[in-house]
């Protein structure tokens, strides 16, 4: 079940899932990733976006992205 597109996301990183009534908070990086996912961007494009947006090495960005995507999967959001 892909719940990503239903999520209500605000600029401060507060996310509400209307299916479950649950809410989450994410930091700037998490918000960046969520918004790119909602735009339908692929993993590689998001990784490149992280490198362009944040002052971070490719290894760290890749690891953080994978970690975060796994977290979203564990919540069954993607």
């Amino acid at each position, binding site marked *: *079940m892909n719940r990503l597109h*239903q999520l*209500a996301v605000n600029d401060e990183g507060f996310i509400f899932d209307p*299916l479950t*009534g649950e809410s989450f908070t994410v930091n700037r990086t998490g918000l960046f990733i969520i918004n790119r996912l909602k735009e339908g961007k692929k993993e590689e494009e998001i990784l490149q976006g992280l490198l362009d947006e944040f002052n971070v090495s490719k290894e760290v960005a890749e690891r953080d992205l994978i970690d975060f995507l796994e977290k979203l999967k564990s919540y*069954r959001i993607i």
Partner: protein
Amino acid sequence: MELKIGISGINAVDNPGPGVGVAKSIKEDRELSAKIVGLSYDAMEPGNYMKWIIDKSYILPYPSTDHKTYLNRLYYIRENYGLDFVLPVLDAELPLYLKYQKELEKNGIKTFLPTLEQFKLRGKDKLEEVAKNIGIETPKSEVVNSYDELVKAVEKLGLPVMVKGVFYKAYRAYTVQEAVSFFNKIVAEWGYPVILQQVVSGEEMNVVAAGDGEGNSLGMIAIKKMWITELGKIWTGITIKNEELLNSAKRFIEIYGWKGAFELECIVDLNNNKIYLIEINPRFPAWSYFSTGVGVNIASNIVRKAFDLPVKEYRDYPAGKLYIRYTDDFVVGIETFQKLITLGEN
């Protein structure tokens, strides 16, 4: 048209009755310009004193007394103040109203309630059948009347297990000893039988809705309780949009031609895409004002339907709206209390 609408359950206490919320909803429909008649069972019920919501209050005999005394009290109210419609919201009074709804109608007091046949669907013994017919599931359960049956049921259902009264109270037991202790507690307070129910994983989500008796919805919303009191009563909640859950409620209305308000209590297991029906309440829940607050005035639609007034069609409601219950207080003179005690009305 100035309707006089009787509403019970105006005991806005720590285990609140649904009446005040229902009364607020009807008051908010300005086109009805309704006067609310509070039907209370105790002079201390706070609704008796809430003049801005309840226009006039009467003390009623308990519904467990003989039906003639009860109905005569309603006729007295109709004669002396006016009573066009009664919306009973308490479990204990529903059987009486269901049984005598036609008699009340003949005597000029309308109701909008399920039939006795429909009412039976809310029984714990019918839950499995109803759930199946509306396309969802129900946890396995056993009805127990003795210690021996209790032990056998625990063996069958496994631990942990829910120990529930037929109408009130539900505890989660992790050991047989705990199950026995909850069993005794429920029997002491509410009597037999006791229901043992399999524990299913998921989140509790509820729907408040009403059917028009012809298979159509008069409005519905789904919510999740975020914060509950020690008595298990909602104190904070949030509206949700779970199409499967809402569709189950729609099917319930369609298949059974349900008439009147109801609440579906469900456990939603998103990991396994399962919805379990836990309970059907054949009346408004205490938090029913939540739906009015998000633009779906179910109570006023019931009154509209009962009086052939145009019914409002509610197609949608916003998810992510919060319900906040809070305590408040106010001071009144002793006159209202005196009148209620001496005259049975204020």
